[in-house]
């Protein structure tokens, strides 16, 4: 009988994948995702694209809020900066898309140094408020810099062509999103098990203690900001390409809330949680619509007229319910289920 997972060395504890079944299922998932564009129709494919882009952004926020414990209410600011950096470089100055993606990462990372600087003095709520203020300021800056950003009119963005491959079709673009999302996932998982990741988590758990242990708070907090903004910026560029149009209205403040909702629903501080949370939050409105339409055509009509409102109400409700009843998120629920499965009928 299996009695539990015993880790006997530090290497086993930090292993990326700790058991053969996880290898197998990860491979199956990857193959399924690769096969998906051939199987799915374009409606379902658009959901897959959104999920992959959102996963990238959520993983970016997860580094800052999940690992390092610095709450950001203004992550949409990095998202919009990344999208604009890409749009300006590629559509306006006709740079190669690869340079555009690099810029989409680097520009928000530089901006995050400015936003991150107050974090050296501020904690918790006050930092959240600073990031909130930043996201409003960045919108105004973009609207005012008309010579560069076209102001409120926005910038048209084409699907890119890189390495001699055109990402014009939906399937090809999905592969691009998949590649970036997979790389980000691998990257964040590896950050988590490195020296840097352990420093982040130490800061989250108790920053005074972390400092006593010899962690340079300033350097690591700024590093968390820069890494998080870099990843989020690239997600922003992808989202801009997906919308094929970059404007301030395309990135409403609600996206910041949605990103936090994803982390809470998935389970704070876990890469798997970010992925699970994204899938749930992105598919939730669609799933609700399906359930409603099962009941009656009339409810379906109500949903169609007030779709946007019901969608945001659902976000709010899901955030509150998860915080109230399952604060550890889907990952926590998954752990509980696994434990119950192994130990049944015993409790421990």
């Amino acid at each position: 009988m299996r009695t539990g997972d015993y880790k006997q060395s530090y290497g086993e504890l930090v292993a990326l994948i700790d058991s053969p079944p996880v290898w197998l299922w990860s491979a199956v998932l990857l193959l399924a995702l690769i096969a998906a564009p051939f199987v799915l129709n374009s409606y379902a494919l658009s959901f897959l694209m959104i999920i992959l882009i959102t996963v990238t952004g959520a993983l970016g926020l997860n580094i800052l809020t999940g690992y390092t414990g610095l709450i950001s209410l203004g992550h949409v600011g990095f998202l919009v900066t990344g999208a604009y950096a890409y749009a300006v470089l590629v559509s306006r100055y006709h740079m190669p898309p690869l340079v555009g993606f690099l810029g989409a990462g680097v520009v928000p990372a530089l901006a995050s140094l400015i936003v991150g600087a107050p974090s050296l003095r501020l904690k918790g709520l006050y930092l959240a408020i600073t990031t909130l203020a930043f996201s409003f300021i960045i919108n105004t800056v973009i609207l005012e810099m008309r010579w560069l950003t076209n102001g409120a009119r926005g910038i048209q963005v084409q699907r890119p062509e890189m390495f001699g491959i055109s990402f014009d079709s939906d399937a090809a673009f999905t592969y691009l999103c998949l590649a970036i999302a997979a790389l980000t996932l691998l990257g964040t998982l590896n950050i988590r098990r490195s020296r840097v990741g352990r420093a982040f988590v130490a800061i989250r758990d108790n920053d005074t203690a972390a400092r006593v242990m010899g962690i340079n708070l300033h350097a690591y907090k700024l590093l968390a900001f820069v890494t998080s903004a870099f990843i989020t910026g690239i997600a922003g560029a992808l989202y801009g390409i997906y919308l094929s149009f970059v404007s301030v209205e395309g990135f409403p403040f609600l996206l910041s809330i949605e990103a936090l909702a994803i982390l809470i629903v998935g389970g704070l501080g876990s890469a798997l949680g970010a992925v699970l949370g994204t899938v749930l939050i992105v598919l939730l409105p669609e799933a609700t619509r399906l359930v409603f339409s099962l009941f009656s055509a009339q409810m379906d009509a109500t949903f169609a007229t007030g779709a946007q409102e019901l969608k945001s109400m659902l976000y709010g409700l899901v955030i509150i319910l998860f915080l109230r009843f399952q604060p550890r998120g889907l990952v926590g629920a998954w752990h509980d289920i696994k434990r119950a499965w192994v130990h049944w009928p015993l409790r421990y």
Partner: protein
Amino acid sequence: MQYLIQLLISGLAIGAIYGLIAMGFAVIYKSTGLVNFAQGEMTMITAYIAWTISTTVSGNVFVVAIGAILAAVALGLIIERLVMRPMLGEPVFATVMVTIGLAVILRSAINFIWDAYPHGLELGMGRGIVHLGGIGVRTGQLAVIATLLLLLASIWAFFRYSKVGVAMRAVAADDRTALLMGISATRVHALAWAASSVIAGIGGVFFALSYDLSPAMFQLGLRAFPATILGGLDAVLGSGLGGLLIGITENLAGGYLGSGMKEVAGFAMIIVVLMVRPFGIFGERDIERV
């Protein structure tokens, strides 16, 4: 000079509205230790209810005022009982996220129940113009400044002299000791939510009176936010005065630097305030024990 005075007066008027909402933030922060991100939405609901009363029941000022205050009290109590009380004892991050979730729900509920078009709150007053030394001022603007000053004075007296006010300060200072002294913390929290809802609601109704009701009104909460930070999150009176300062700053920035600056002047200001004096002008410095 004329232009400057005009800007200052309209800045004071909008600043008084920010001040009222900022006091709402501070009342809740002072007694429960959390920032209520749904303040703007609660303000907005009260204003919409006032508008509904004025169009369906009666346009009489007193009927609308009493109805709106009762509705605000009920709203505050319901939210405290159903949403916030179960979160008692949870980490601050979780509780604050709950208010954000609540904000999203309330905002969409407003769009769902009422419509997305702007409405004017017509009570047959508040839009008339009085001339003060050659400068036209709306009566509503004068009324809101007067209301703010009146509320500031009465709240100061309430916290200073009344038994309930002292109990609230005790809970804010140290809830466990307050509990041992026989003060019911939950009752104090409920009172704080109701009071905050009413104070902010008054601001909302005045806003609707001088400007218009619209779904974008929830932004009032975000605009009033810098006021609380400036005055100090735990300083109720300071927040009220902070509102006036923010209102003036915004209007001067908008008048002399362009309308884009008006939008962000408050936010730029809080970043500076947070860097220099994170606890605000009138707030108390947090002392952290290891």
